[in-house]
């Protein structure tokens, strides 16, 4: 670890916070239907969309109608993407002439992009036509992110309103999230990516003749436009197999900083939007502070572990002063590689500029644990905020138990029904992650997919299901996941991790919106001070630790001690 490294981390995070603050306030205006500088241009487009679709934009929806509209839209998105992939051989914009995608892989990939997971069981440059990349994957990058933002706004309204029956209109929120937030940002970021050297062409590949006379086929495509929304929407599905480690997705230190900035931006901004919309910016800041305290602590662990290097290589006569370089690119450096690892898994992004499977044992345990915490630091766009709110509800509940009061959050009494629903949401994640991991660890067929034997093999399985269930999409990519078993079970894990979590959360939002706002009294537990932030961090860690520590102990933790004992597998 060096001071220059930490300065780089501080500068990138500082830029994120400043921009997120402004963006958050802008989003609050957008979702409260106030005028913004883009309104004159976009309002006619927005209205034209509603007219064509027969949407009555002024009519708000109950939590159930809102949720059903969201489910219908996402189900259709899944079907369209599945069909595009299966039929790509018959469709245009397929310069490399790829065949249709196999059914299990198409199921897995369609589920993956519809749930904002963007797990990739395929290599982009060897599987998907440009049409699928643009009209299929890029579209879902936008829409799954817009869905997340819409849901976060609906949950926010539950706290902003008193005795309300409705949470907004899904179609309007989703349309505004795309038109006013994601699309303009994507245009800006795509142009900046192109400026740093990311290609943007409809050509398939070029043939080069190297100085030694060998042939090299260089895959190309419309990368910059997809890279922009992939980062902004915390999707993470790369154009290329190597994702943001590929020099065309991430050519230099600038594109790398931009890549980190753009993935953290929207999720961070939503905490400011939350504060503004509930009418108390300190409430948003409290959530933000807890998120970033844990994010920075996680970065320190990864940075330390990776910069220390691999002692087993030192024994082979290698100078490991530059740290662990297996699975890393020279141009990014250890500091911003570590921040990338943490940001992409604290978020539900899943883009990688480092191969996580080659991280040091403790360096690799951090992204795994961050995903298992439920992707809330600061989480996927939208999903991070509503995930964090669920934990905040648990925190006030636990605090309430300690002092024997009815817990309240933002003036809403938290009662048995809300707590039951919150626990239901929270328990789905470990059930899916640990259940499927345990099954895979016992099935001989599933074990054939492992790239590394020993504890790292178990970590590969755990990582895959944590990533799918948390809708992250990054991988310990040694695992050969393109098999019927993994494609199917990971697809189901993504489905449950996204929608089985959202439905109870929306039910909580519906119940809370209907409640009257209780005025603040001297007996109210303040949810913006250091005590609450400390409790919130404690609940996040204890919850994650209790659920996953036994599994982690058998994976990365035992591996760390074996490494220092000089054991190899």
């Amino acid at each position, binding site marked *: 670890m060096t001071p220059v490294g930490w300065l780089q981390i501080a500068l990138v995070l500082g830029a994120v916070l400043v921009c997120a603050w402004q963006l958050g306030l802008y989003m609050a205006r957008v979702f409260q239907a106030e005028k913004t500088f883009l309104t004159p241009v976009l309002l006619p487009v927005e209205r034209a969309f509603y007219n064509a679709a027969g949407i009555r934009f002024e009519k708000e929806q109950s939590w159930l109608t809102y949720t059903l509209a969201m489910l219908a839209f996402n189900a259709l998105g899944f079907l369209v993407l599945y069909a595009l992939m299966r039929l790509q051989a018959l469709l245009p914009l397929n310069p490399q002439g790829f065949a249709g995608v196999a059914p299990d892989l198409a199921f897995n990939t369609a589920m993956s992009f519809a749930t904002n997971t963007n797990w990739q069981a395929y290599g982009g440059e060897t599987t998907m036509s440009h049409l699928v990349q643009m009209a299929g994957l890029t579209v879902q990058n936008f829409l799954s992110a817009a869905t997340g933002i819409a849901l976060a706004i609906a949950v926010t309204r539950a706290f902003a309103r008193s005795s309300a029956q409705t949470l907004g209109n899904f179609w309007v929120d989703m349309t505004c999230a795309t038109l006013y937030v994601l699309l303009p940002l994507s245009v800006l970021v795509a142009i900046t990516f192109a*400026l740093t050297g990311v*290609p943007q062409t409809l050509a398939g590949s070029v043939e080069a003749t190297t100085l030694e006379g060998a042939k090299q086929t260089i895959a190309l495509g419309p990368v910059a436009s997809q890279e922009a929304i992939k980062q902004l929407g915390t999707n993470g599905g790369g154009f290329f197999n190597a994702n943001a480690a590929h020099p065309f997705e991430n050519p230099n230190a600038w594109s790398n900083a931009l890549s980190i900035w753009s993935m953290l931006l929207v999720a961070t901004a939503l905490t400011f939007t939350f504060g503004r919309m509930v009418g108390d910016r300190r409430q948003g800041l409290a959530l933000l502070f807890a998120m970033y305290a844990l994010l920075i602590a996680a970065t320190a662990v990864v940075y330390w572990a990776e910069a220390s290097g691999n002692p087993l290589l030192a024994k082979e006569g290698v100078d490991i002063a530059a740290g662990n370089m297996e699975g890393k690119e020279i141009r990014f450096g250890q500091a911003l590689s570590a921040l990338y690892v943490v940001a992409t898994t604290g978020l539900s992004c899943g883009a990688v500029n480092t191969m996580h499977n080659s991280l040091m044992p403790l360096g690799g345990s951090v992204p795994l644990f961050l995903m298992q915490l439920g992707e809330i630091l600061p989480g996927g766009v939208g999903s991070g905020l509503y995930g964090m709110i669920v934990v905040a509800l648990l925190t006030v509940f636990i605090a309430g138990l300690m002092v024997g009061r009815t817990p309240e959050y933002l003036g809403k009494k938290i009662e048995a029904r809300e707590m039951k629903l919150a626990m239901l949401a929270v328990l789905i994640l470990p059930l899916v992650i640990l259940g499927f991991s345990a099954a895979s660890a016992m099935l001989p067929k599933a074990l054939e997919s492992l790239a590394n034997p020993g504890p790292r093999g178990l970590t590969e399985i755990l990582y895959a299901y944590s990533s799918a269930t948390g809708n992250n999409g990054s991988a310990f990519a040694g695992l050969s996941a393109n098999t019927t078993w993994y494609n199917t079970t990971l697809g189901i894990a993504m489905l449950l991790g996204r929608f089985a979590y959202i439905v109870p959360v929306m039910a909580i939002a519906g119940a809370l919106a209907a409640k009257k706002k209780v005025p603040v009294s001297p007996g109210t537990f303040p949810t913006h001070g250091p005590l609450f932030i400390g409790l919130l961090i404690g609940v996040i860690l204890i919850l994650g630790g209790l659920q996953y520590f036994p599994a982690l102990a058998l994976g990365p933790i035992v591996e760390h001690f074996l490494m220092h004992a000089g054991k190899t597998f």
Partner: protein
Amino acid sequence: MLAHVRPALVMMVLFTLLTGLAYPLAMTGLAQLVFPSAANGSLMIRANTIVGSELVGQSFTSDRYFWPRPSAAGDKGYNAASSSGSNLGPLSKKLIERVNGDVAALHKAGATSPIPVDAVTASASGLDPHISPTFAAQQVARIAAARKIPEAQVRELVERATEQPFLGLFGERRINVLRLNLALDAAPPPGAG
């Protein structure tokens, strides 16, 4: 649920047109117009032949050229249509054996102890275009001998090719292998003065 079918269908079509076609195509048009070189992959051209991309690493095995890092992209490495890391964990026997073999090969080619870590580790993409200045320095003697030119001349090319971090901050000290090898080929032959 049926009431949501029409809005879902129409919105899907409209957003596919907007975000799936109009947006990437507009970005393609703009990028091709404003940054044509980068938009087409930052290709390097010598004597009307594409010799590679400045951004994408490629394989060099001859003693006359600087060698890049090991690569796990494709079967033979540096396959720019199949990017990949090795995905080997730090305790992997395969990793240790590979490193052991590479260290021995580098020593045979004139490298001194200790070997810099980037020289024996595979990058994340398998297409890392860079090497560290230390790894380059260890290759100078081999290349000077193969080309029969003074070591000082090669060392000067290495120095000139070394890219520094911006403001001493962003980006590591690194050398683009393809650029350096092109500079080697362009250098005056021995005896030319």
